[in-house]
C-alpha cells in the first residue's frame, strides 16, 4: 500500500546535499581512526612524502567533483489506486481520540504516507483547529520505540499464542478486572459490553489519573442524571472561571478557545465596552486561562468553596458574606463586588465554570450560581451523551483486584497505572495478580509489570468511532496499514469475545473489528436508511454522521435542595481554612503538552515550551514569590514535598512562578516516567505519589496540610534540572505588546498610535513596487491569541523542525521557528500577562539580508524573506542582525542518527528540505504551501483566492488569531486587519518594515476597578530569580 513512487519525495539525504557536507560515510572516513601508532609511520622519506602529497591532492581536488551523485531508483506501484498521484496529497477525515476530548482531524497523506494532521474544518467541536498533541501524534506514528509486537515477559510471542493463553485464562478465571480509559467510542463500549456478557466473571472499571470525577458526580446528583455541561462561551458576556483552565486543560479546549475568541474580537461594530466579554479568573495555579483574564484573583483551592458560596449570596443581593470573605483573604472588596454585580446584571449572558480538581461542594455552589444567573440553556448546554465515561473510584478498582482472594485476571487497557496510580504503590497490588494483560502503544511502566504486553495500534492505523455533541457520530479510519505487528485493542477484545461466546451469532459474523464497527453503524445509525453503503461511504468522506438522537435537546432541571445540601458539605480539605495560615496546599495539574504523561515519549511535546512557565523537558513545583520567600526557597532549590506527615513524598526542583496563589504548591503530572523510551525516560519527576484517592466529594488533586523540606542540592542531575526557553518576562518598558482597555478604545480607537513613538523613517534605496503580484503578509490578533502553543508544534510538524534536547535548550539553541513570547507586568503576586506569537516578520528592509555574504537570504518579489538552505554557509551574521531573534541555527547535526532511522524519517514533510549542521533556518510563511497554491491556481488559470493559502500556524489556531493573505487584495481578511486602527508592527521604529501586523490587545476590565490593584513585589525582582 505504501510503496514509494518516485523516491525523490523522501528528502532523506537532502540536508547533507543542502549543506554540501560529505555523506555520513565520507564523514566517518574523514575522521582519522585513533590508533596506537603515529602517522606517518616510521621515517618519512622523500618518496612517501610525494605519494602522500599526490594522494591528498587527488582526494582534495578530484574526489568531490569527480563523483556523480548516488544513483537512485524510481519505484512505481504495481497496481496503484486510481486517485493517488505521486507528490499530490490526499486528505482523509478521521477522529483523534488519544486525548480527553475527541476532535475531528483531516490527515494529509502523500504517496500513502500520512505526514500532517490538521483539524477537520466541518467538525462542530474543533472546526479545523488542532492542538499541539494532535499535531505531535504524527511523530508517534513513525516511532520505532513503540511496542512492535506482543510480548510475554521479555519474550516476543505470536498473536495466536497470546489469544490461546488469554482465552484460556479468561475462561478459567473467577474474577476478571477490566480497566479502560474514559474516552471510549460507542463501538468500543459495545465490544466491552459483549466481553462482559461473554464472561460473567468480568467487571469493567474506568481509570484516568487526571479526571473530572467530582464534577461529574456533583452534576449527577444536582441535575438528576449523568451528563456534561458544555459552556457556550460565544454567548457569554461575563465569564467567571473558578479554577477552571477552560482555555488549556479543562474540557474541549479547542472549542472553548474558539468560542471565547469570538467574544474578544473588535470589528468596529458597537462600543468595545459593550461588545467584549469580560473574563474573571479565580485560580490557584497560573494557567493559560488566568493569563488571559481581565481580572485575575489568586486563591488557594481550599478557599474556593467559601468564595463560591459568598458569591451565590452576593449575586442574590446579599453582600455581607462576600465582604467578609474579601477581608479574610485580603482581596479587593470592590473587585469581588464588581464581579458579583456583573454576574447579576448579565442574566442569561454570563457563565461560571469550576475546575475539575475542586471538590463537589464547589461544583454545587457553582451550579447554584449558574442557576441564579440563568446560564442553563443559554451559556451552558446540557450534553446527555458525553464522549467520556465517568471514572470509577480508585478504591473500587483496588478492592476488586485485592478482595476475596483477589482477581485472577487484570487487563489494563490503554492505561498506565504503574506510573500514575494515586499515591503510587500499585506494584504491590500488581504482584498479587497471577495473570495481567497490559495494552498500550508504548512499552510503559505497566506493560513492564504485566504477564502480556500487547501493542495497540496508533489512531492513524485504527478503525474506531467517537461521540460528538448533540447526537453526532464521528468515524476514525486508518490512513496507513499498521507499521508494526500491533493489533488494535478493540480487535483483540473482539477475538476474545468471539472465542468466549461462540453462540453469539452477531459476533461470529464479524470477520474483524472493521466489520464490527461497520455493523454497529449500520444497525444503530443507518437503520432507517436504505442507501447503505452510500451513507457509510459518505461518513468515510466527511468523517461524521448526524444521526437522530433521542436524547438530543434534552434539558435538565437544577435540584435546588440537592445543590444546597451538597454545597454545604464541608470536606476535609477546607477545614480550618485560614488565608494567612502557614498551611500549604498542593495542587496537581495535567501538563499542557504531555497531558497525564501519556505523551511523554513524544519529543516534540517534551520540547514544547510550557505556555506559562516556558519549561521544557521536565517540570518542578511552582510556588508564588511570597510563598517562596516564606519558605526560604528560590528557583532551582530542591524541596521534598510530603503529602501528609507519614504519607508519600517527592523531591522536586522549585520554580518561582509569579501568579501562583500564596500557600499553594503547583505540580504537574506527566514527567518522571521510568519507562518511556529514549525520549521520555528519566525526564523530570513523577508527582503521582502526591495524588490522593478520590472520595465521595473530596478531590484527589488537592491536598491540604502538606509539608515542605528544603533538600540540600547535590550534584546536578538530568531529571531535576529546570530548563526554560524564556527567562526574562519583562518588556523593559519597551513597546513590544501594546495594550489598552476597552474604554480607552472607545475614546480613541487609534489609541495604539499614542503608545509608541515611530520617528519618520526614510528609505535610502528606491522603493520596490510590490503591487504587481501578491504581497504576502500576516496579521496576528493578540486579543484572540491565548498562548496555547498549538501553532508552535504545527509549525514543527509542517517544516521538519528538529528537536534539540534538554542540554541544547539550556544553551538557548531550540529550533522552533515560531515561539510564544510571554511578558508579565505589575505585581509578582498577580501579574498581568501578555503573550505574543513571534516568528519571522519577513521585513521588507530585512537586516538579515544585507549581511549575508553568500546571498543565502534574499527578498522575493512577493515580499517574502527567503532562506535558501543549500546556499547557506553558516556565518550566523543574519541571526545576529535580526532584531526579533527568530532565526535558528543548526549548531549540531540535530537530525542525528535517530532520525535517519528508516521508519522515523517517514515523518518528514517531503515538500520541505531537511536542514543539517551549519545551516541557518527560519519561518518562510510556509513557502511550500504558497507555491502549491500558486502552481495550482496558475495551472487552472485562476487567481489565488483569499484563504487558499494557510500557513500551518494559521491553520491550526483554534482562536483564528493568525491570518495570512495578500495585502494587495483590498478585500482579503489580512488587509482589513492591517488597516485596523489597532494594528501596529513590533519594532517598526527600527525601519525594518516588518510584514506581520499585530493587533493591540484590548482588555475589558470592570470600569470601576483598576486591575491588579493589590500591592506586592514587582515582577522583575522575582523573575530575576528565575534566571538560570
Amino acid at each position, binding site marked *: 500500500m505504501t510503496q514509494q513512487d*518516485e523516491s525523490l519525495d523522501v528528502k532523506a539525504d537532502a540536508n547533507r546535499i543542502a549543506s554540501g557536507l560529505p555523506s555520513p560515510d565520507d564523514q566517518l572516513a574523514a575522521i582519522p581512526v585513533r590508533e596506537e601508532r603515529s602517522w606517518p609511520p616510521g621515517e618519512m622519506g622523500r618518496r612517501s612524502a610525494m605519494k602522500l602529497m599526490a594522494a591528498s591532492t587527488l582526494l582534495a581536488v578530484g574526489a568531490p567533483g569527480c563523483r556523480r551523485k548516488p544513483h537512485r531508483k524510481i519505484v512505481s506501484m504495481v497496481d496503484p489506486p486510481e486517485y493517488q*498521484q505521486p507528490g499530490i496529497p490526499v486528505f482523509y477525515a478521521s477522529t483523534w481520540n488519544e486525548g480527553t476530548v475527541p476532535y475531528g482531524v483531516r490527515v494529509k497523506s502523500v504517496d500513502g504516507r500520512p505526514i500532517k494532521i490538521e483539524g477537520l474544518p466541518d467538525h462542530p467541536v474543533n472546526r479545523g483547529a488542532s492542538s499541539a498533541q494532535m499535531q505531535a501524534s504524527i511523530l508517534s506514528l513513525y516511532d520505532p520505540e513503540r511496542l512492535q509486537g506482543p510480548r510475554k515477559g521479555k519474550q516476543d510471542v505470536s498473536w495466536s499464542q497470546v489469544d490461546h493463553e488469554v482465552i484460556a485464562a479468561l475462561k478459567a478465571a473467577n474474577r476478571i478486572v477490566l480497566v479502560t480509559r474514559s474516552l471510549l467510542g460507542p463501538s468500543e463500549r459495545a465490544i466491552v459490553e459483549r466481553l462482559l456478557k461473554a464472561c460473567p466473571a468480568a467487571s469493567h472499571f474506568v481509570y484516568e489519573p487526571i479526571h473530572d470525577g467530582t464534577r461529574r458526580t456533583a452534576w449527577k446528583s444536582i441535575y438528576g442524571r449523568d451528563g456534561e455541561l458544555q459552556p457556550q462561551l460565544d454567548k457569554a458576556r461575563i465569564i467567571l472561571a473558578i479554577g477552571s483552565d477552560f482555555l488549556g486543560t479543562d474540557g474541549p479546549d479547542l472549542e472553548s478557545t474558539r468560542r471565547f475568541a469570538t467574544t474578544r474580537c473588535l470589528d468596529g461594530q458597537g462600543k468595545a465596552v459593550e461588545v467584549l466579554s469580560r473574563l474573571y479568573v479565580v485560580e490557584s495555579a497560573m494557567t493559560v486561562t488566568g493569563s488571559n483574564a481581565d481580572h485575575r484573583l489568586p486563591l488557594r483551592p481550599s478557599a474556593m468553596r467559601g468564595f463560591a458560596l459568598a458569591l451565590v449570596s452576593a449575586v442574590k443581593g446579599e453582600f455581607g458574606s462576600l465582604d467578609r470573605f474579601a477581608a479574610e483573604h485580603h482581596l479587593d472588596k470592590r473587585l469581588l463586588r464588581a464581579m458579583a454585580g456583573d454576574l447579576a446584571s448579565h442574566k442569561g449572558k454570563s457563565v461560571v465554570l469550576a475546575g475539575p480538581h475542586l471538590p463537589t461542594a464547589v461544583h454545587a455552589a457553582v451550579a447554584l450560581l449558574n442557576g441564579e444567573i440563568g446560564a442553563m440553556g443559554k451559556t451552558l448546554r446540557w450534553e446527555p451523551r458525553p464522549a467520556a465515561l465517568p471514572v470509577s473510584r480508585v478504591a473500587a478498582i483496588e478492592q476488586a483486584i485485592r478482595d476475596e482472594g483477589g482477581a485472577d485476571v487484570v487487563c489494563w487497557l490503554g492505561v498506565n497505572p504503574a506510573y500514575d496510580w494515586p499515591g503510587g504503590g500499585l506494584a504491590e497490588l500488581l504482584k498479587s495478580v497471577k495473570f495481567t494483560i497490559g495494552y498500550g502503544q508504548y512499552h510503559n511502566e505497566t506493560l513492564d509489570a504485566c504477564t502480556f504486553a500487547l501493542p495497540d495500534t496508533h489512531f492513524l492505523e485504527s478503525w474506531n468511532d467517537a461521540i460528538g455533541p448533540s447526537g453526532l457520530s464521528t468515524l476514525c479510519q486508518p490512513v496507513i496499514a499498521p507499521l508494526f505487528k500491533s493489533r488494535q485493542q478493540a480487535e483483540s477484545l473482539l477475538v476474545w469475545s468471539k472465542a468466549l461466546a461462540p453462540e453469539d451469532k452477531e459476533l461470529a459474523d464479524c470477520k474483524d473489528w472493521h466489520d464490527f464497527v461497520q455493523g454497529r453503524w449500520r444497525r444503530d445509525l443507518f437503520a432507517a436508511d436504505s442507501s447503505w453503503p452510500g451513507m457509510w461511504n459518505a461518513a468515510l468522506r466527511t468523517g461524521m454522521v448526524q444521526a437522530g438522537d433521542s436524547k438530543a435537546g434534552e434539558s435538565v432541571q437544577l435540584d435546588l435542595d440537592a445543590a444546597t445540601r451538597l454545597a454545604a458539605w464541608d470536606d476535609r480539605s477546607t477545614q480550618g481554612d485560614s488565608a494567612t495560615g502557614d498551611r500549604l496546599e498542593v495542587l496537581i495539574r495535567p501538563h499542557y503538552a504531555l497531558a497525564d504523561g501519556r505523551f511523554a515519549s513524544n519529543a516534540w511535546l517534551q520540547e514544547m515550551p510550557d505556555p506559562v512557565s516556558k519549561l521544557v523537558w521536565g517540570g518542578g513545583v511552582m510556588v508564588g514569590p511570597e510563598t517562596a520567600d516564606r519558605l526560604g526557597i528560590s528557583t532551582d532549590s530542591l524541596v521534598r514535598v510530603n503529602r501528609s506527615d507519614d504519607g508519600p513524598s517527592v523531591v522536586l526542583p522549585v520554580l518561582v512562578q509569579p501568579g501562583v496563589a500564596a500557600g499553594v504548591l503547583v505540580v504537574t503530572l506527566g514527567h518522571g516516567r521510568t519507562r518511556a523510551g529514549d525520549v521520555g525516560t528519566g525526564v523530570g519527576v513523577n508527582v503521582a505519589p502526591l495524588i490522593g484517592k478520590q472520595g465521595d466529594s473530596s478531590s484527589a488533586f488537592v491536598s491540604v496540610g502538606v509539608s515542605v523540606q528544603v533538600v540540600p542540592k547535590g550534584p546536578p542531575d538530568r531529571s531535576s534540572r529546570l530548563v526554560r526557553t524564556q527567562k526574562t518576562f519583562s518588556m523593559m518598558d519597551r513597546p513590544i505588546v501594546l495594550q489598552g482597555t476597552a474604554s480607552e478604545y472607545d475614546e480613541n480607537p487609534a489609541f495604539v498610535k499614542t503608545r509608541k513613538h515611530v520617528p519618520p523613517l526614510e528609505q535610502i534605496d528606491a522603493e520596490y513596487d510590490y503591487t504587481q503580484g501578491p504581497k504576502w503578509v500576516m496579521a496576528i490578533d493578540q486579543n484572540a491569541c491565548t498562548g496555547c502553543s498549538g501553532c508552535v508544534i504545527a509549525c514543527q510538524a509542517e517544516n521538519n523542525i528538529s528537536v534539540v534536547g534538554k542540554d541544547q535548550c539550556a544553551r538557548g539553541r531550540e529550533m522552533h521557528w515560531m515561539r510564544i513570547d510571554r511578558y508579565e507586568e505589575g505585581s509578582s503576586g498577580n501579574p498581568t500577562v501578555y503573550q505574543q506569537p513571534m516568528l519571522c516578520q519577513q521585513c521588507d528592509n530585512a537586516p538579515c539580508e544585507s549581511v549575508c555574504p553568500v546571498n543565502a537570504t534574499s527578498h522575493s*518579489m512577493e515580499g517574502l524573506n527567503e532562506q535558501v538552505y543549500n546556499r547557506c554557509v553558516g556565518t550566523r551574521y543574519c541571526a545576529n542582525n535580526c532584531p526579533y531573534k527568530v532565526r535558528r541555527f543548526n549548531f549540531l547535526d540535530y537530525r542525528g542518527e535517530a532520525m535517519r532511522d528508516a521508519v522515523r524519517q517517514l515523518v518528514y514533510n517531503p515538500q520541505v528540505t531537511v536542514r543539517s549542521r551549519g545551516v541557518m533556518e527560519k519561518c518562510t510563511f510556509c513557502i511550500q504551501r504558497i*507555491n502549491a497554491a500558486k502552481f495550482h491556481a496558475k495551472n487552472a488559470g485562476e487567481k489565488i483566492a483569499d484563504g487558499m493559502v494557510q500557513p500551518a500556524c494559521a491553520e491550526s489556531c483554534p482562536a483564528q488569531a493568525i491570518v495570512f493573505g495578500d495585502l494587495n487584495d483590498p478585500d482579503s481578511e489580512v488587509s482589513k486587519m492591517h488597516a485596523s486602527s489597532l494594528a501596529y508592527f513590533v519594532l517598526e521604529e527600527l525601519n525594518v518594515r516588518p510584514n506581520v501586523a499585530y493587533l493591540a490587545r484590548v482588555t475589558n476590565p470592570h470600569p470601576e476597578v483598576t486591575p491588579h490593584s493589590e500591592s506586592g513585589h514587582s515582577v522583575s525582582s522575582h523573575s530575576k530569580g528565575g534566571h538560570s
Partner: protein
Amino acid sequence: MFSKKFDRRVRLAGAVFVFSMLVGGAFGTYVLWPANMERGYQPAQPIEFSHAIMAGKHEIACVYCHSTVETGPHAGMPSVATCMKCHDKIQTKDSHGDLKPGIKTLLRHWSEKKPIQWEKVHDLADFVYFDHSRHMAVRSGLECKDCHGDVEKMDRVRRVHSLKMGWCLECHMQPAPAGSPAGQATRAPITCTTCHR
C-alpha cells in the same frame, strides 16, 4: 654545452609536454566539469525498455505512461498495471519461441506483484523542488524534449542536459514574452523560493 640538435629536441619535447598538459588539462576539466559529468548519464535499466520502439515507432504519447506530468509535480512512472494494459496481449517471442527477456521480467513482476525498480536518469538534488505541471502548462510553450531530448530516438534513455541551475536559468532568465503580466521581467520567476525551500 649541448649540441644544437639535442637542444632542439629538448625544446620540442618541452613544447610537446606543455601542449599535451594544456590539452589534457582542458580535456580533463571539460570531462570532470560537474555539468558535463551529469550529461550523458545512461544507466542500464532492469528491463531493456526501448523508448525508440514505444514512443518512436508506435508513437505512444508520453502522457500515456507518464500520466501525471500535466497535473502534478512528478511526471509519474507507469505502474506495472499500465504496462500490462498492452502487454497482457502483446507478448513477443524470440526466434526460439521463448518470450523476450524484457517481457519475461515484466510478467514476473506482475505475477509476483513486485514493483520494478527503475534507475533514475533525470535526478535532481533533493533541495530542488521541480514541478512538471508548471512546465507543461500551455503558456510555458515547452515540450518534453526541451529538457529530456529526443527520447523517442533513444533505445536506452540518456540524460542530454545537465539539469544544473545555470541551465535552468538559461530559460528562466529570458526576457518575458509579449503578453506577460505587467511587472514580469523574465520568462519565468527567478526568485530562490521558486525552486528552493
